[in-house]
C-alpha cells in the first residue's frame, strides 16, 4: 500500500514539478502555482493524525515521499511543511497556509533537539532521492557519450566511479530507511544521527562522481545535473553535517554505557523496530 502511495506521489510530482519548473523557481521565479498545487493535493497532511483531519500515516510511510522530493529536486519546503503541520496538529494548534519551516515552531510545539532530529531524518531522505537521480543521470550519460570511439561507460575508470556512486546511493537509501524506522511519531534521534552521517558522506561522493562522469556539460545551468548536485551539497550540511552527527552518535554510545560496538548498534537498530 505504501509503495502504491509512493508511486502515485512520484507520478504526480513528475507532472507538477518537472525540471523546467524547478529551474524557473531556482532562478527566482514564483513558486506560488507549484505551492498551490501541493497544498490542494492533500499530501501535506500525510502525517497529521486522522483525528485532526490528516491521513495519519506512520513515519516509515512518508519516507518515500520525502525521497521523491529529493529525486525531483522539489524547490519548495514540502517535507518541512508536512512535518510542521503534524507537529502543530499534535500540539492542538492550527497551521497557517503556505510553506512552513520547523524553525518557526516554538519550543513548546517542537523542542529544539527534536527539530534537529527531524532535519537529520528529512535531509537524509532528500539526499537518498537526489543521489538516485544523479546516479541515474550519470549512468545514462556514460552509456550515450562517445569518446575514443566508444561509450565512456565502457572504460573501467568510469565504471568504477559509477559503482562507488551506486554503493553510496544504496547506503544513503538504507540510512534514510533507518531514519524513518521509528514506530513513534518522531524519528529516533540516534538512528537519524547515524543516517545523516552516512547520507551526508554519500552526498559529497555522489555529487562529485556525477560531475566527474559528465564533464563540462554537467557544470552548465542548462543541464539538469546541477539541480540535484547543488541540493546534495546543501542538504549535506543543512541541519548538521556528518561531522556534527558523528559526534552525536559518539555521545549516544558514550551515554549508553554499552561496552561493545555491536551491542550498541543492535540496541539502536531495535529502537527502529519498536
Amino acid at each position, binding site marked *: 500500500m505504501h509503495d502504491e502511495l509512493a508511486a502515485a506521489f512520484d507520478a504526480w510530482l513528475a507532472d507538477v514539478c518537472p525540471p523546467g519548473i524547478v529551474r524557473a523557481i531556482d532562478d527566482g521565479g514564483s513558486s506560488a502555482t507549484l505551492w498551490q498545487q501541493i497544498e490542494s493535493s492533500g499530501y501535506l497532511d500525510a502525517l497529521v493524525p486522522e483525528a485532526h483531519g490528516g491521513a495519519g500515516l506512520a513515519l516509515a510511510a512518508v519516507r518515500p515521499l520525502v525521497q521523491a522530493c529529493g529525486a525531483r529536486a522539489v524547490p519548495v519546503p514540502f517535507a518541512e511543511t508536512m512535518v510542521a503541520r503534524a507537529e502543530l496538529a499534535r500540539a492542538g494548534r492550527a497551521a497557517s497556509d503556505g510553506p512552513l519551516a520547523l524553525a518557526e515552531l516554538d519550543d513548546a510545539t517542537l523542542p529544539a533537539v527534536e527539530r534537529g532530529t527531524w532535519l537529520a531524518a528529512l535531509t537524509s531522505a532528500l539526499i537518498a532521492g537526489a543521489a538516485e537521480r544523479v546516479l541515474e543521470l550519470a549512468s545514462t550519460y556514460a552509456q550515450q557519450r562517445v569518446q575514443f570511439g566508444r561509450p565512456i561507460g565502457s572504460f573501467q575508470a568510469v565504471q568504477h566511479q559509477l559503482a562507488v556512486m*551506486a554503493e553510496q546511493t544504496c*547506503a544513503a537509501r*538504507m540510512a534514510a530507511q533507518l531514519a524513518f524506522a521509528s514506530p513513534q511519531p518522531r524519528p529516533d534521534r540516534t538512528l537519524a544521527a547515524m543516517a545523516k552521517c*552516512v547520507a551526508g558522506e554519500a552526498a559529497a561522493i555522489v555529487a562529485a562522481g556525477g560531475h566527474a562522469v559528465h564533464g563540462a556539460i554537467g557544470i552548465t545551468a542548462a543541464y539538469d545535473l546541477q539541480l540535484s548536485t547543488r541540493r546534495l551539497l546543501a542538504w549535506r550540511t543543512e541541519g548538521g553535517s556528518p561531522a556534527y552527527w558523528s559526534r552525536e552518535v559518539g555521545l549516544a554510545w558514550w551515554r549508553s554505557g554499552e561496552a*561493545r560496538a555491536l551491542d550498541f548498534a543492535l540496541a539502536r537498530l531495535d529502537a527502529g523496530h519498536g
Partner: protein
Amino acid sequence: MFLDSLSLTRIPAHDEALRGPVRIFLERALAGVPTEVRARSWSGFDADFSRALGERGWIGLTLPSEYGGGGRSVFARFVLVEELLRAGAPVAAHWVADRQSAPQILRFGTVEQARRFLPGICRGEVYFCIGMSEPNAGSDLASVRTRATRTASGWRLEGQKIWTTNAHRTHFMLALARSSGDASSRRAGLSQFIVDLASPGITVRPIADLNGDAHFCEVFFDGVELAADALLGNEGDGWKQVTSELAHERSGPERIYASLLLLDEWLAWLRARGRPSERSLALAGRILAVMSVLRSLSVAVTAQLDAGASPLVESALVKDLGTTLEQFIPETIADALGEDPDAPLPESLARTLRYVAQIAPSFSLRGGTREVLRGMIARGLGLR
C-alpha cells in the same frame, strides 16, 4: 534498478532468539583468549572449538536435518555468524565447509555425496578448502589450467592451486578444474571435484603471511587419481556452480566485522580513560553509524537470499562497502591513538591494532577483489 530491492528488514524473533544461547556458550568457551588472538576472527583455526560448536548443532544450521543440519533459515545463520564474529571465535576449521562446500554439495551433488560429507561437516569433524586460484588464474578465474582427465575408473588430476586457505589442515578440497577444452575455452569445460587431500600425488605447502601466520597454501596435483564420484554436479557446469554461491559468500556479516575486535578493544580503552576527546568521540560515532547501516544492508540481502533470490550485484555492493569499513577502522583508530604519542597504550590494544592493520589489505582481496566487485556493480548498472 537493483538499489530498490534492499529494504529494511527485521530478523524474525525466533531466529533472533538464537543469539542468547550462542553468546552464553561463546563467553564460556573463549574465556581468557587474548584479544589479538580473537582478532583473527574467521581466520582463527581450532578443531576442538569447531567440534564443540558442531555438538550444539551450530554448524550446517541451514542444512536439512536428515543430513545432520539444523533446518533453520538464513536469518538464523546470520545471527549465529554475527555472534561468532562478535566474540572472535576461531571458526576457520569448519568455516568454508559450512558456508560454501556443504550448500554446494547439497545443491549440486548426489544423495550419496550428501550422505557421505554433510553429517561430518555438521559435526565439525570434516573440513573443506576451496581450490580456485592458480598462479595464473586469480581474479581471472576462468583461465584455470588444472586439468582433470577421464580414466577407466574416474579422473586424473594434474596442476596447481595457490592461495588455498587452510589446505594444510583441511580434509577435502572443492577444486575447480578444466575437464575439457583449453584455457581459451574460458568458462566452458570447467568442472568441480571433491578431492581427498590425503590422496597420493598431492603436495601442500603453507605460505607464511606478513603477520607470521600460515593460512594460505600452494597445492600441487601430480597424477592424483580420483574416483568417478569425485565429480560434483555436471561435467562442464563448474563455472555456473562456483558462481552460484557467491551471493552467500559475499554479503554476510563477515564482510563488515573483520575489525570488530579491534574496535571493541579501542572503545573499551576509551571508556577506561574517562571522557574521550571530541575527535575520538566523532570517530567512534562515524564508525558505529556506518556499521549500523551496513549491518542493515547485510540483513536486507539475507532477506533476499531467504526469498530464494540470488542477489549477486547487491552482495558485491555490500562486500565492497563492508571491507571499506573494515579497513577504515584500523587506519583511523591508529591515527586517533597517535593523537597523543605520550599516552601509554595497553599491550593488548597495541598488539591487536598491529595485527589488524597489517592484515587489513587482505579484506578487499579475499572473496573477490574490490576491482572485480566494482566491475560486477557496473554490469548491474548496464555499463558492461
